[in-house]
């Protein structure tokens, strides 16, 4: 329930943890979550976990 003065600060149990990947097409390295990592630089899905 929200208090009258504003939202209650609640720590969420699950934090955002990503895995590191390298794009085989453009060489960019990035951190991603989820099952289908995609290079944010060139949009290639040909990536490898590092």
């Amino acid at each position, binding site marked *: 329930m929200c208090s009258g003065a504003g939202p209650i600060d*609640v720590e969420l149990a699950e934090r955002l943890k*990503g895995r590191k990947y390298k794009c085989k097409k453009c060489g960019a390295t990035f*951190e991603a979550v989820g099952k289908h990592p995609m290079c*944010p630089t060139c949009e290639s899905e040909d990536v490898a976990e590092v």
Partner: protein
Amino acid sequence: MMESELYPLYRESDAVSDGDDAAYLLISSTKSPAFILIGQVSRRFALCIELQEREVCQTLMEGDMVAVSAPEGGELRHAAMLLELVRSYRQPLLVLPKDHAGSKRLSMVVSAGSEIIPKCTIIRGTHPEQNVICSSEELSALSFHASTDGVKVSYPSKDIFKAEIIRYSEIF
């Protein structure tokens, strides 16, 4: 007991090419001015989430949602603009540190993914997890699950909200 209803919102073409025909699901509270506006992704892309110390990317797949929540209400046009900045123009999401002064400036917030759970107990704009979104208390009883069939809304009672599919041309 939760019930659910599927809204066939998904379109294979994207909002930019759809123009005036782009479709949104508008969830309005019947208890307050609060609402949530939802659009679906038609072409997958990497959504960038900018944290203070790093960047994390989340691939949005075809059918995933981009949702804008307005816990105190506001203009639909504002919400639709925010939605399209992310969905059509791939604007990164910025996550504020807890207790940041900017949190109180956020009248509307954005989340994205295949599942979105509204919560009224989180600090606006400070959580990187994309499956939750700050909302009004009554809309936090809902949940949204997306696929290429549409958006499934789960709810305890139909009394707390109204759902309708609206078009870009009705907003702009």
